[in-house]
């Protein structure tokens, strides 16, 4: 596999791990008990450390690739929201019931673990990088176990099979998300000429629009109409 493909996978993984670190931190701050807060804190700490490890691996993989290519893989905190790793509507705990949140953690840790095993294959299980990712996989399994424990403790009427149902639901959602994104990409491709035409018309209009009228030279800025958006 070529290096840019590995970079692409690591790039997405860093966002995903950073996103989980923040989700867990938010959950820690909203937790109803100090033992729940402790659990989420420790989980968040692990995710921060995972982010750091993946960042290091990504940096190591950049040698020999030209800079204009590399610019695509720059990580910015803003990307978390732009790429949807943190929802624009807020963190999961800000919008979800505790039950759904724990179920989400339960399934996502498993899904993370399985996607990391693919990364280990790419990096090589015998390399130092491969080994550090395997360590991360152990963490994810532990998180998964903890979430299951919580789930059964706080919602004892739920049976393990119901958790599997949750898992199925989440995996379908995840797959759906991927399908949705690839579809969106396709639609973008099809509709781009249409958008462009629209942009062309708008730019024509803009060209004839005289914004000079809104110059503020020699105006008292305190007296400008505050209801106006222009």
């Amino acid at each position, binding site marked *: 596999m070529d290096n840019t493909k590995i970079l692409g996978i690591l790039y997405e993984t860093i966002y995903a791990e950073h996103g989980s670190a923040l989700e867990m931190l938010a959950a820690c701050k909203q937790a109803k008990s100090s033992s729940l807060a*402790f659990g989420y804190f420790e989980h968040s700490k692990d995710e921060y450390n995972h982010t750091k490890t993946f960042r290091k691996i990504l940096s190591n993989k950049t040698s020999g690739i030209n800079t204009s290519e590399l610019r695509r893989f720059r990580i910015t905190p803003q990307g978390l929201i732009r790429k949807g790793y943190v929802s624009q509507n807020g963190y999961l705990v800000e919008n979800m019931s505790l039950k759904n949140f724990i179920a989400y953690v339960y399934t996502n840790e498993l899904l993370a673990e399985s996607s990391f095993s693919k990364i280990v294959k790419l990096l090589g299980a015998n390399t130092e990088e491969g080994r550090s990712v395997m360590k991360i996989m152990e963490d994810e399994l532990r998180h998964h176990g903890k979430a299951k424990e919580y789930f059964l403790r706080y919602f004892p009427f739920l049976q393990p099979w119901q958790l599997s149902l949750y898992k199925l639901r989440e995996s379908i959602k995840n797959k759906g998300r991927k399908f949705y994104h690839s579809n969106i990409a396709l639609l973008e491709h099809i509709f781009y000429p249409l958008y462009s035409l629209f942009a062309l018309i708008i730019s024509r209009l803009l060209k004839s629009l005289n914004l000079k009228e809104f110059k503020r030279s020699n105006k008292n800025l305190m007296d400008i109409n505050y*209801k106006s*958006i*222009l």
Partner: protein
Amino acid sequence: MFIGISAYNHESAIALVDNNGNLIDYYREESLSRIKGDKSFPKRALKRIFNIHNLNTDAIEKVIFYEKPLSAFLFPLKEASKFIPESMQLIVNQIRNFKKSSLSCYLDIAKEKPGLEKKLIYIDHHLSHTLTTLFYSDYQNDVCSIVVDGFGDRSTTSISYVRDKYNIKELWSSSYPNSIGLYYSSITDFLGFTINEGEYKVMGLSAYGDSNSKEAKLVNKLMKWDSFNNKIILDLEFFSFYKSITDSYGSKLISMLGEPRNPFAKLLPGDLTFQKYANIARGAQDSTNNVLSKIFNYAHSITRSENFLFSGGVALNSASVNYISELDFVNKLIVPPSPGDSGAAIGASLYGYLKSKNVKCIEKPSLYPSNYSCYDQYEAISKLLDKNYILVTDNHIDSIELACRLIKEGEVIGTIISNSETGPRALGNRSLICNGANSKSVKKLNNLIKDRSPFRPTAPAMKKETAYKYFELNPAVMSSYKTMTATCKCKKDSISLSFPTTHVDGTARIQIVEEETILWELLDKLIIEGIDIIANSSLNISGDPTCFDLIDGLMVCSITPLKYLLTDIGMIKKR
């Protein structure tokens, strides 16, 4: 009460001014969301302000947005439309993302606090900046305000004259895309740093550069002041930010300077390519200083003013602030603690107050306006404290005593003390501190804990008399030394030249600490022990926003070698 909002372009923020004109609360959204540079609508900040002050929408007289949304939307689009088809992607993108632009402010407020949107008003962007600065200024009449940023809602730089707080007349402006801020950001991008975050690194790097080098001269030439027409002229052929969503600089810049720097490579003094990149940074800094001095000169010539307010993102450049303060006609130069867009929410809220019925005088705001106490989270973290930490002291006097002892022994300490600063500078309440004369401690702070670029020094904090002893202080920017918004030179042959907090060019971004602050208390005791300088950096992990609450602080302890956290509840030690 009056709520000021800044959002959608740079770090978003909310400010709250009460009916007596006092700034009583302020939050950057990034402090609460923990996403650095978070520019989304500040819903968490808004919610927190309502919760903490027990507000309902009736208590709010006006909500003031810090720019005119339609202008902010149209000006860049109009410019881009000149470059079709090259700019097609940008135009499509702008139009499709209008929901993430200022235009959706009304809807976002309505979604978060139904009813509040009816109180929304909009003010000129550069006026927001000017009012923020005026809030912190001793001079509120007959002073000239200069605002320099990337792009506001119609201009990139402006000069206005403040006769008094109700008479602020704009005299000159520079139109988009001729922008000092966007020029500096493009070079930041070329040097492999992130735009809106890495500009500090460029400034730090420039101290290693040579103004007479080929690279510095080439970069310097790209932005000029046309003294005949009094205009900023940017050589647009070398840049792309006005026509592309992905590239800030053009292929012509690459042909002139060679490959841009690999953003993932470490940049270390002494490396093969280090000097080249330092020279490029030098060129950008020289050009910025030069054009800024021309603008100030022009402002002086048309207003005869010797007192200036300086704000906008470019005023974050503390080396430039120092440069301008040395111009011979500058008597006073006032820079607010948060001169960028997030601070502009403060000016916007002040506008609401000034337009209300019962205006008295305006009180200078506290440097620590964001309400918080560690006791709020004491219960919540009890298990975490039990398991991983020890509360070594539980009263203030013992904690200060212990902190001094640890600093003397070379330890680095984090602080989470009551209210937080506006940012971006940590002034002691959300800081990492250590003995500023101890190279080993400063190195530990920089490398192990902060993972900071080695070419950026940590700032020194001290009492006023110490500052006079070591540094050449400029009376024009005395207020800036309190908020770390200006650098200054070490005295000739002074021992301060060898301090680990001094930059390679013999300057330091000093902080003169105010009385009744945590750093003052520490220095009071440390001076007796022979330590008169504390190295002070913001408490955060590299790439994260400055810590806001106790849990953020404990997280830094947990994932870095930081061992001690000085808090409201006492000194916390990692097990």
